[in-house]
Each structure stands twice: as structure tokens, then as C-alpha cells.
């Protein structure tokens, strides 16, 4: 039987109470923000609580919000840690889904930007192993007590974490001389279009 997003939110608030720093609805899905130390606990409750029943582990990833233009923010240099209200760091993003009651929950776990450390949820969801390995190598997040925290995609000797905003992809002109007379990027940089 379907559980509407609104009363799913109330159920979550009821079940989790103060463990969650902020709970809201976003496009029909429940959005939670959790502190790293209560992360595993919240995930276990979401999975085991019959009323919630989030048994389907959809994905775990991370978002580097260091250059995200929050409201009233001007353009900030990539890699500068945290804006005024500490929103601008790295956060682990977990999405769970309840197949019986058809509702979604997005868990945001903000981490410290300099040395992001997050407890691993492979204990709760065995499938999180690969997702955490990928987040570790791409964002440089260290997952504590992870069975096999090695690189998944990148080779061992790859330095740097590619998905961070500070990791620059070679711009076009670096790879190939711009074929035309005027390079639009320079034009754009010079305040053009």
C-alpha cells in the first residue's frame, strides 16, 4: 500500500526524532540531514523499522558543494572550504527506497572538508561496499571499518580525487588548439556573450 510523501515525513520524524538535524520534502521525496556519528544508526532504523521498511539500497555517493552558489553567494574559488553557514563542504549522499510502501529518502551526511571521514554502512547494506569504494577514490572520503577500501575504477597509483571541484579537467584549448579565429572561451572570459 502506498505511503504518501507527507505522512512518510511524519513517520520518519516520529521514528528518528532528534537523530536527524533537518527533515524536509523535496520533489516528493523525504530529505534528511544526519550527523556522521548517527549515520549508521539512522540507516539501520530506516531499514529495520516495519513502518518505514526502506529495504532497497539504491545508491551511496558524495557531492562536493564547495563551489555551489548558495543563495546570496558570489562566485567562489573551487576548493575553498565551507561558506558562512558551513553548507559548502563535502557531503555523503545515500538514497534508500521502500519497495512495499513506495517512498524515497535522501540522506545527506555533511563531512569536514579537510579530512572527510564517514562510518561505513556495509554492515547494514552489504551492497554499499562498491559504492563506498568509488566515493572514497573519487572524493577522498575515508570510510571507517570498510572490509576492502581499495580503488574500484582508478589504478592504485592514481593521485588526487577526480570528482572534487578542485580537480580541473584539462580545458579545451589545452588539449587542442581552437580551430577558429576567435576562441569563445577567451571571449566569454573577456566578458563577452
Amino acid at each position, binding site marked *: 500500500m502506498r505511503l504518501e510523501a507527507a505522512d512518510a515525513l511524519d513517520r520518519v520524524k516520529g521514528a528518528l526524532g532528534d537523530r536527524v538535524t533537518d527533515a524536509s520534502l523535496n520533489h516528493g521525496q523525504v530529505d534528511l540531514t544526519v550527523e556522521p556519528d548517527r549515520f549508521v544508526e539512522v540507516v539501520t532504523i530506516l531499514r529495520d523499522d516495519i513502518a518505514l521498511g526502506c529495504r532497497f539500497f539504491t545508491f551511496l555517493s558524495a557531492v562536493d558543494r564547495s563551489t555551489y552558489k548558495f543563495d546570496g553567494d558570489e562566485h567562489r574559488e573551487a576548493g575553498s572550504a565551507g561558506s558562512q553557514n558551513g553548507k559548502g563542504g563535502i557531503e555523503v549522499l545515500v538514497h534508500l527506497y521502500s519497495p512495499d510502501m513506495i517512498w524515497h529518502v535522501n540522506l545527506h551526511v555533511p563531512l569536514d572538508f579537510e579530512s572527510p571521514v564517514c562510518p561505513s554502512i556495509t554492515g547494514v547494506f552489504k551492497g554499499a561496499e562498491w559504492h563506498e569504494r568509488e566515493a572514497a577514490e573519487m572524493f577522498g572520503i575515508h570510510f571507517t571499518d570498510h572490509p576492502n577500501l581499495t580503488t574500484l575504477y582508478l589504478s592504485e597509483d592514481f593521485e588526487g580525487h577526480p570528482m572534487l571541484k578542485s580537480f580541473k579537467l584539462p580545458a*579545451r584549448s589545452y*588539449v*587542442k588548439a581552437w*580551430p*577558429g*579565429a*576567435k576562441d*569563445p572561451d577567451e571571449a566569454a572570459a573577456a566578458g563577452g556573450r
Partner: protein
Amino acid sequence: MALDIDQRLEKARRPGFGIGLLKGMAVLLKHFVKRNDVIQYPEVKQDLSPRTRGVIALKEENCTVCMLCARECPDWCIYIDSHKETLPAKREGGRPRKRNVLDRFAIDYALCMYCGICVEVCPYDALFWSREFEYAEYDIRQLTHEKEKLSDWMSTVLPPIELEDGADIPGQPTKAVTAESATPSVETTAASPAASAPDTATSPAPETAKPAPGLAEEVKEQQMDSAAKPEAEPEVKRDPEGTVEEGTQAEVEAKTEAETPSTPESTAVTQTPSTPAEPAPAPTRPAPKLEDLEPAEDAYGRVLDEQTKAGSSPQVAEARAKVARVKAERALTQARAAAPTDTAPTPEPSGTPEATEPEQGSVAPPDEGTKGPND
């Protein structure tokens, strides 16, 4: 319906005793004797649609070197060189005009992923898709086609293809058939391709285009017919209006008329003209009374022969009939739900109407081993 899927799975899992092996061999023998429709590629070429993304052709006159395509291309595979030329002012005393002249326009097909963004983004419609694809090279450097070669491809570009009837062609009233008159609005003849893009720029007037052998899809229909001849399906002879190869003009007219009522309102209307079951689809439709609703089966039969009489292809007719039946059933269940509760039995969940859905038509799920009913 879901129930018998599990049963079929159970039946499929039971160990047969060698019969399955023989049935498998029977399938092979059936194909061994059946004539197959393999095209011998080099001699017989498949007739591709004008939209096929074979190679990009350049119409040099249209290009104003705005570099949009080079910038939008995800693979950075378009190389353009140009220089500015000052032209004498048109009228004396006017300012000398500056014009961009194209020196080099090359597309490196070794990098190109044929996404078509350049063709789409070009504001002056200088780039077109041509369906030629046989330009393999031994040396990868020759895959970079220069301006001249791209212009040669222009000769193989075909006029854009005519659109399905329901398409909304700008500057054309969509052929939504009003309830009373089913007369088709004036059909544009096939000659003037009415592409959705603004008319002026698209018709590339390919002077040396080899005369398009009738419309691409019409040729393909024959080619499909010859291929599908051994099939039991009756292939339909569809003549696009305008190019009248066979069949009289009247017959073509009748056919286009039949085509247009593909819109649900019209099917709904023609479907139950007698009983006002579905008045204009007002948002809150008053539930029609139970007795004057048409049972699902007659809706199916009636729409089927209506459509085949009107000459639309059997597949489309059958599909429309099936949709009509589903709609009739839904109307019935709603009516039964709305009727006073004491007389009507507890309303079935709308998904499973009492009348067991007759398993027929070629989309009936094939039960184990036995062939479909009209195989």
C-alpha cells in the same frame, strides 16, 4: 493475468522428457524449409530513411562562419578557418561591409560521434544529414573530410520525410477531425515537403539529387512487403496521398480520410455514436447509466470492422479496436461503481473486469508450446 504468469512459470520449470528437444529441432526444420529474406548487401542495398545519420553535408553558401557548430560539438571534431574580407559598400557613401569568408571547413569523422548537434544548432541551416555511409578509408587521416568533399555529399541529401498525420506542422491546422465532418482538411501534396523546421531554409533544393524514388517510406513498404510475403500477415498497400502509383485517386482520398480519425476523441466519438456514453470529455464526466453502455465485445467488433472498412492497416485497426474495448470496459466498471450499491455487485477493482478478457489477437501471450491463435 498476473496469476497465470506464475502458473506458466511453474509449467516452464517442470522437467519435460525429450519433447522439448524435439520441439526445438522442429523449429529448426521449419526455418530450414522456409524461404529467407536475407539481402545480399553489395548487390541489394537497404533503402534508408532520409533522416539516417550517415554523413554530414555542408552547403557552403549558407555558412556565415558563426562557429556555433565548432563550439557546440562535444567531440571538438569540426575545424574551421576563415578570414574577414571588406566588401565595397552597396550604395555609394555606404560603409564598406565586412564579410567572413570560409577558408577551411573540415569534419574529422574519426572523432565524430554522429550526434547531430551541429546540424541542429546551425542557425543558417548549412549542415544536413545525408544517408550515405560507405566512406571507409584505409588511412585514418583521410577520414577528415574537407570542405569540397562535404559539399559533394550535398548531392546525396534527401528532402525531409513527410510526417505522420497527427503531427503538428506549423502553419497547418493539426488534422484534429471535428466530430461531425470527417472530411480531411486540405492535404499538402507530397511534392512540397512540409518539414517542421521553418520552410524557407530547409528545402535544400538539391539540384543534382538523384530523383527521390517516391517517398522513402513508400519504397521501403514494397521492400518490406517483398520481405514479409511469406509471413501470414496480410501486408497492406499504403499509398501516401500525392504520389499516386497505383489505386485511384478516390481510393487514396478514402485512405487519408481513414487515417485522420486516429485521434482518441474521434475514436471515442465514432466508437459509441448512438449512446451519449462519453459526452465531450469534460473534466468531471457524469457516470453514464449502466444499461445503455455498450459491452466490451461489441465495441471491439464494431471498431475493428469500422477501421478495416475505412481501410486503415490491419495492425492499426486491431490496436484501435483493442483500445476501444479497454475504454468500454472501464466505462462499464465506472458506471457499475457509480450505480446504487444495492443492485450492483461490489465493484471489481478496475483492473480486472468481470468479462474475462478474451485471449485473442496476435498479442495474446503465447501459452506453453501451442502456437498463437492466428499463427
